[in-house]
């Protein structure tokens, strides 16, 4: 399921949401921003690749979806392969 509904409304209140990628997990004031904007903000410091898909729970997030206060947004990291 792709989480696109009720996301593109203007004037949404900003606030805190949680963003995660691999070993990183940080509450941040990204609520009100789009997934694309959050990716841009954290991609350099955490090394999030451009093809890492964003999820909220089991729902895949559209790049234009607006992040809601309190949401847990996870950019999926590829699992370790070798062993």
């Amino acid at each position, binding site marked *: 399921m792709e989480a696109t509904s009720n996301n593109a409304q203007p004037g949404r209140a900003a606030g805190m949401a949680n963003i995660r990628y*691999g070993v*990183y997990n940080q509450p941040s004031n990204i609520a009100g921003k789009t997934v694309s904007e959050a990716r841009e903000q954290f991609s350099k410091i955490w090394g999030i690749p451009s093809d890492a898909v964003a999820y909220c729970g*089991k729902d895949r997030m559209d790049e234009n979806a607006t992040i809601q206060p309190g*949401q847990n947004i996870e950019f999926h990291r590829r*699992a*370790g392969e070798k062993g």
Partner: protein
Amino acid sequence: MTEEEQIEPKRFIVVGAGGIGTWLCAGLVRLLEWKYPGSGLIIVDGDNYEEKNKERQDFTKLGNKAVVKAQELTTQFPNTTIIPVPKWVVGEDFGGVTDEDSPKIKASELIRENDVVFAVVDNFAARSILFNAARNLDNVDVFTGGNDDELFGSIYHYQKRDGVEITCHPEEFHPEYVNPPDKNPGELSCQERSEIEGGTQLLATNMAVASFILGRVHKTIVNTQSPEETEIFFDLGLGKSEPYNRTHSHLNQENEILV
């Protein structure tokens, strides 16, 4: 538990006796020997130990990995039956050639109800085959783990009870399980296998993956607690680890909140 109560023996299956598998076997056999005497440890690997593997892998002589590792452990742990399966694991649809130099076993013939499986091979293709075979069972645990970029690693625990998935199949979060970017060595020729790059791996990271898996086994199998730390990412360079709850109950709850 009182002494009179019967402790049910376990059947642990380790697929891959390499950089992670050798260290994992050392821990699992000790767990079985003392907590579940009379249990079975099945070690599956079609590959051979070579001198160059000694940098990261624990073995005392050259030869087939499953056979060598089983021989070593059998002499030390008499209360555990250790069975080598010197074969490559392949999927149901494998249509290639099985010859004496490259024996195969289908995952569905290897895994059965109530098994605890450790998929510690070095490719997503073979892991995917094992997870998919486990998915057809009602009660099973599959642990997997791997590492990349020297000090990064991750582990995953798939669990089913009474026909219900407790944790998600990893393909729900990892496209690399749906369309593996690599190939199952068991389905390649000897020449093709020899050309596969092992990548840059470190002993510390291999051992860390094994340790994280052992920790999950202790919590979820020995103590029968919830597998809510379903997936764990770690980075030894950063000194960080992060657990992710991939249980269906948690994810459904999280999505309900958002509706």
